[in-house]
């Protein structure tokens, strides 16, 4: 290494030598007196820039061109320019350059190009990377193992490893036993009918140990509603409906809308203010003046009072003349009473007798009553049946029927491809469950804060306001 350096220094000092770099300016000026004999001062006070420059130059040449320029042959550095090159060569050159790679390999990334080695000197081999501690020992061991295997001998350690059971990674129990495991398997749940033959002893045992299944109440097997699970839409709901059925469906939807509109109108009418009730100036003044205007009214009132008093006195006068009852009067009253009783008695008997002749009309009236009760019964039963198909009121909210799914005439698609589906099946199923009394209608739970929010101004704002 030192010899090579010495050679380069000698070459650099030759007079005809050409540098790539221009020589830097030599440092001039006063120099401090230093002792150059000590190693300490060699680094600080010796100027080796020229050597360094030369060496850098040499290295640059080697990196870029792969060797010293002076050692290269003439042909590799220069060429003889003989005018324009041939057309064919040019054409051959251009398409190769301009051609974008159509094939499988895409253009290389710029970062890859940047990170490539662009020096013509290969990087030195990292010996440490290839070094392996204990390489000899390991090599020896593996050779021995190969020899033993070739002979067929199995070492004790290998025997133990082979006899170990392999580890089977079980799938998570929670996943396989979960209800919605997509690969779960089913079995014949209705197959084992032979368990109906019950042993009485076993029955007692199960009951005593608390393992007997509780019987399901029979009422639970009744359906909560008579409505079918899936209600097919009317024929007007077809994607390409017949004219009249479509009109019928539109009519139904229209009626629903009319009903809604009527209710809204009714509300508005109820809330509407009558024009007559608005206060005019007259009424305002009258109201304000009430009770303040006295004289005329008082006179009228006095007259009326006087008239009332006289009438009362007359009536009182009549009642004050009542006297004690005489004997005669008492006897007469008794006789009257007896007569009255007898009259009533005879009347009753007469009625009894006459009822014989009234049999027919009595029959008619009875029949009529029965008929009316029957009619009422029928109507009540019909109402009950109708109610059965209505959704029951199961909770706080009433059941809201969903809107009819209808497509207007201009929304109807001409073909299956252009069909735009109407309504959501998810919502339809949800409402059907509510309609059949399987769940109660509920609304989304609102977010209620436990503690009230407190708003505080920031200090900065407080300073401003």
């Amino acid at each position, binding site marked *: 290494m030192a010899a090579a350096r010495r050679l380069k220094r000698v070459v650099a000092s030759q007079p005809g030598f050409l540098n790539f770099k221009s020589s830097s300016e030599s440092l001039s000026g006063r120099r401090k007196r230093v002792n150059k004999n000590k190693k300490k001062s060699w680094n600080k006070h010796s100027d080796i820039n020229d050597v360094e420059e030369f060496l850098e130059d040499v290295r640059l040449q080697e990196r870029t061109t792969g060797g010293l320029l002076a050692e290269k042959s003439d042909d590799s550095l220069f060429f003889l320019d003989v005018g324009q090159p041939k057309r064919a060569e040019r054409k051959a050159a251009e398409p190769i350059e301009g051609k974008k790679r159509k094939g499988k390999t895409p253009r290389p990334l710029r970062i890859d190009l940047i990170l490539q080695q662009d020096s013509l000197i290969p990087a030195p081999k990292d010996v440490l990377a290839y070094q392996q501690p204990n390489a000899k020992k390991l090599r020896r061991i593996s050779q021995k193992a190969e020899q033993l295997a070739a002979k067929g001998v199995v070492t004790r350690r290998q025997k133990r490893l082979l006899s170990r059971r392999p580890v089977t990674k079980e799938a*998570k*129990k*929670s996943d396989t036993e*979960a*209800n*919605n*495991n*997509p690969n*779960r*398997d*089913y*079995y*014949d*749940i*209705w197959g084992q009918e032979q368990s109906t033959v019950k042993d009485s002893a076993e029955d007692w045992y199960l009951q005593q140990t608390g393992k007997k299944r*509780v019987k399901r*109440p029979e*009422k*639970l097997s009744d359906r*909560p509603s008579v409505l*079918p*699970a*899936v209600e*097919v*839409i*009317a*024929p007007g*709901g*077809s*994607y*390409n*409906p*017949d*004219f*009249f*059925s479509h009109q019928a469906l539109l009519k139904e939807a229209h009626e629903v809308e009319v009903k809604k509109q009527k209710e809204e109108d009714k509300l508005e009418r109820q809330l509407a203010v009558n024009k007559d009730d608005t206060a005019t100036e007259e009424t305002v003044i009258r109201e304000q003046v009430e009770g303040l205007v006295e004289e005329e009214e008082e006179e009228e009132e006095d007259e009326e009072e006087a008239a009332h008093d006289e009438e009362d006195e007359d009536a009182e006068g009549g009642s004050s003349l009542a006297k004690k009852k005489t004997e005669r009067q008492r006897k007469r009253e008794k006789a009257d009473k007896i007569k009255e009783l007898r009259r009533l008695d005879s009347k009753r008997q007469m009625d009894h007798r006459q009822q014989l002749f009234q049999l027919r009309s009595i029959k008619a009236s009875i029949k009529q009553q029965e008929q009316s009760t029957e009619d009422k019964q029928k109507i009540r039963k019909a109402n009950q049946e109708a109610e059965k198909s209505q959704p029951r*009121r*199961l*909770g*706080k909210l009433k059941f809201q029927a969903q809107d009819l*799914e*209808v*497509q207007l005439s201009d929304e109807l698609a*001409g*073909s*299956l*491809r252009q*069909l735009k*589906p109407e309504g959501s*099946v*998810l*919502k339809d*199923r*949800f409402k059907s*469950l509510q309609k059949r*009394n*399987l*769940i109660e209608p509920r*609304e*989304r739970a609102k977010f209620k804060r436990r503690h009230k929010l407190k708003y505080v101004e920031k200090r900065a704002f407080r300073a401003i306001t």
Partner: protein
Amino acid sequence: MGGLQKKKYERGSVTNYITRNKARKKLRLSLPDFRRLCILKGIYPHEPKHKKKVNKGSTAPRTFYLIKDIRFLLHEPIVGKFRDYKVFVRKLKKAYGKTEWSAVERLRENKPTYKLDHIIKERYPSFIDALRDIDDALCMCFLFSTFARTGKCHVQTIQLCRRLTVEWMNYVVAARALRKVFISIKGIYYQAEVMGQLITWLVPYQFSHDHPTDVDYRVMATFTELYTTLLGFINFRLYHSLNLLYPPKKLSALSASLARMVSSAEEEEAQLDQFPVEGEDMEKLEAREREQKEQEAQKKLFDGLKFFLNREVPRESLAFVIRCFGGEVSWDKSVCIGSTYEVTEETITHHIVDRPNASTQYINRYYIQPQWVYDCINAKIVLPVEDYFLGVTLPPHLSPFVEEKEGDYMPPEKVKIMALQRGEKPEQEDEEEEDEDEDEEEEEDDNDDEEEDEEEDEEESEEKNLKKMEKQRSQGKSLQVKVTPGKMKVENPERLEQEEKAEEKRLAIMMMKKKEKYLYDKIMFGKKRKIREANKLTAKRKAHDDAEKANKKKTRK
């Protein structure tokens, strides 16, 4: 006061009911847990007849449950699991707060879970009970399978729902159980007949999604939990009834057929037809046989036809429906996995497109709009393809769930379809009418005095009259296209019989008593009014059609 006096609200209906909050406290559960438990066990609130009594004098609206139900709930083992889960959540929160990650792991691995199998067995003790409740379950599962896999509800639930719905659809395909389909603006309604039960369910469109805010997702998720369990067990049982393997493999594309355990299932079905039930009359037996034959014919509606679905048609729905009736179906490979053949296949008979014009035309296949498939299924015959070509205004898609009574307005398309149904089977038509005549005569002989039967006869003859009129009308139209001399012969004996019947009817009317006549007049008045209205509507429709035709001519010029 004295101890012997009766206190109010201690006896009677008050003692049968309990408010929701009291019930919750009795069970020591939180409100969401209580609601979940009630939904899972099938315990619903009741509205008492005399609310004021039960509410102890106040009229505040409260939710009431029967005390017996709540006492039954106390014995439920799931209640313990709910409480365990609450404890688990508390412990987990603590571990998170203290950042003890090993504890979190450990707790997560031992998360308490519960199973609903015993609840299903208790609520639906027999398989038929479960089948009756499957409508709701299917709707929920189909709905959840169309949800997007965001975090709103467990992704596992959505996957499970998807798996169950695909299994169900494959069962319906294998059992050829589908009967009616209706495309509405809400979604697609299907009706299938499984083990004698008519099951209707609604499938929403794949591309519609708005998540309304006023729907309680927790409640829906709880229902879905219950229903997925139920549907899984039902699927298992149904597959075993058809001798198919459960769980089936690789079904998501709906184009593969299911592996069979024993292939003799179909033979068994064919033999069942021949066993007559004892004690039945000949006509009823014949009627049933006819129905079965029709059903068999309907099941093979698309047998031998090969379909290809273009990209823009609803692939799942159409694939399901076509395969239910025996057709083969495929689609472009890039749309979804499981396509069996490509566009270029020569043997494709029908290519289903929804665009106004098709790109490349192959010669020996029909290019039709998807409504043709659905209309064929509802009409139970293969309809003529001309009305459904690309660019043609489609006839309206009628609802198969509407049963029109005689005298009601029937849209002309339906009349045409019925005519086609009859036109395609002229021999069977004779048998039908002869049987009907026999029925009528027998009934008349047996029950002369009762009014109701007379009315039935009249109804039937009225129905026949109307049908005759419509048939004549439609045949009048169709005669222009096809000349069938055979049909003309058939009419004469029928007409004679018809006249005889009419005479007998007139005699019967003359012989009625005054009161009966009065009732009969009232009924006929109502019927005639309906018929008059129906005629009015048809006249209107005709005028509308004529006007449209005139308009079209004008625009063409």
